[in-house]
């Protein structure tokens, strides 16, 4: 069953008053759990056929947002529409348009993997034979055919995650809510999930992906909403968010440690920014500022490296990194994201 491109396009239903072409729209969502605010006025707008990355640390409100949009939770304040339907007033129509996977949904541990998928197929409206056939396809696609006859309680964490995702792909949906779908997956499975997310969007579906992996949102999302303490604190393309952070890091390794003081003076003059001498005696790092000259940080960095050569300083190697989303998060919240993992920098 590889006909992703032949999937039907996004919704043709009526849209909420203010949201033409939006598959997901949330206005000032509020939710409290026992007095503790989980959402404090979160806004979200996701265009149909795109992947939106909802990025934030643990407890930021990602899962609460997904649960409200998936009709599982009533917000204390605010409104939301999914596939053109009000989640509060028309939950059944919303449920006909969505699929849910990840933290917010799970599988039956007592049943086998195959039985779980057949059950979900039948509950999704497939006839018995079609549900069986679809289960077989999914088991095959997710590398679970060997474990298909075993009870899920014996599955590894990664296998369970794959089954969970497979279950939510039983039938097509206009909007997919994937709540941390790759947490606990090995790199190969993660790559597969990434491929599927891209293909879902290519087929016209909308994907709301929550993740703590900064790289994941960067790679997959058309737009990213950064959520923290129950509000969306920034929204934009990955590029815009990086530009908002407005800097990149230049690292230069010299061939000769004796040239480091000269190199440092030269760089400071060129970049007009502090240059650090690192514990490694040949290493210098500098944060290249953005907007000041109108010249992109990467070009400034390239010019600086060239100038060192002209000044007779031998550069062993250099690297210039776009700001990682982690740095973006730091710039937005002035605190590090919870699952700090330094994104791979572009290198020489």
């Amino acid at each position, binding site marked *: *069953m*590889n*006909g*992703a491109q*032949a*999937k*039907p396009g996004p919704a043709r239903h009526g849209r909420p008053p203010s949201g033409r072409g939006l598959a997901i729209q949330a206005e000032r969502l509020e939710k409290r759990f026992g007095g503790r605010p989980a959402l404090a006025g979160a806004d979200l707008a996701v265009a149909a056929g795109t992947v939106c990355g909802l990025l934030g640390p643990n407890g930021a409100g990602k899962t609460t947002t997904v*649960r409200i949009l998936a*009709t*599982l*939770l*009533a917000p204390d304040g605010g409104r939301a529409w999914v596939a053109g339907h009000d989640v509060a007033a028309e939950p*059944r129509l919303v*449920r*006909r348009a*969505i*699929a*849910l996977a990840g933290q*917010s*949904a*799970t*599988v*039956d*541990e*007592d*049943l*086998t993997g195959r*039985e779980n998928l057949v*059950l*979900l197929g*039948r*509950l*999704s*409206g*497939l006839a018995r034979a*079609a549900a069986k056939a679809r289960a077989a*396809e*999914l088991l*095959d*696609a*997710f*590398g679970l055919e060997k474990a298909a006859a075993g*009870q899920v309680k014996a599955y590894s964490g990664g296998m369970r995650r794959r089954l969970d995702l*497979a279950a939510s*792909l*039983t*039938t*097509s*949906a206009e909007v997919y809510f994937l709540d941390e779908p790759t947490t606990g997956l090995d790199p*190969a*499975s993660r*790559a*597969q999930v990434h*491929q*599927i997310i*891209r*293909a*879902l969007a*290519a*087929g016209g579906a909308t994907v709301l992906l929550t993740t703590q992996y900064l790289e994941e949102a960067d790679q997959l999302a058309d737009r990213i909403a950064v959520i923290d303490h129950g509000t969306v604190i920034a929204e934009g393309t990955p590029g815009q968010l990086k530009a908002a952070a407005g800097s990149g890091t230049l690292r230069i390794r010299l061939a000769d440690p004796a040239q480091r003081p000269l190199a440092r003076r030269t760089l400071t003059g060129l970049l007009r920014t502090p240059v650090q001498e690192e514990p490694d005696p040949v290493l210098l790092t500098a944060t290249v500022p953005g907007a000041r000259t109108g010249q992109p940080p990467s070009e400034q960095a390239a010019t600086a490296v060239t100038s060192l050569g002209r000044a007779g300083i031998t550069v062993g190697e250099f690297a210039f990194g776009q700001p990682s989303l982690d740095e973006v998060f730091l710039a937005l919240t002035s605190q590090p994201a919870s699952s700090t993992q330094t994104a791979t920098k572009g290198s020489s």
Partner: protein
Amino acid sequence: MTVLTTTDAASETAPPPGLPAGPRPEPPGARAASAAFGWRALLKIKHVPEMLLDVIAIPVVFTLMFTYLFGGALAGSPHRYLQFILPGTLVMAVLLVTMYAGTGLATDRANGITDRFRALPIWRLAPVTGALLGDIARYLLAAGLVVILGLAIGFRPAGGAPGVLAGIGLLLVFALALSFAWATMGLLLRTPQAVMSAATVVLFPLTLASNVFVAPHTMPGWLQAIVAANPVSHLVTAERALLAGHPAAGPTAWVLLATAVLAAVFAPVTARLYNRRR
């Protein structure tokens, strides 16, 4: 594991396997969804046969213990007492098994699968009605064991096979309605263990302070009043009459009315609680 191509070029040309294709099917109707959940309930029995331990042990222990422990003292001989106690044992065994209707829902809620079901466009009560199918299997097993064991040790119902079947049928209907009460409790309490404890606290006094073991006229007046008001007494009286082959209209009507009230109250409450968005 399926071999993966991770380059962007590949992902653009060849869609990955497993992707859903074609339009989404129409959601299943109430009956189809309930049937799917019923299938799940039966699969759970198949995969976790330990859960049947109580269902098997309670009828066997009750039938043998009450007959031989009390029979000589209460009725002169176990055989004579068996004719009196067996309908009561039947009721007790099945009613005690009804509490599982609540534990299953509490378990589902605790591990999160309830969310997956609730996000589906299916009839709101389907997960509950489907689970009742598994309950019916358990009730029939418990009832069948009591009757078969009773017959083996000398129970001779005057009503014959029709009387026994009618008795089991009435009991089944009442037990299913009562199941909704435990389902409600399963959605209100946090853990399956709590449901079990609460149901036990309700069921034991209800079954013991009844006419299951002795005729009420031997009891003090205040207890006779309690026993007479106890719904289990009416159920047992109706069962005795059915098994004896001369159905009693009064108690039977009373049981059917109680069944209707239980279902009318607790089925909607269960549906509401199951789908409450919090």
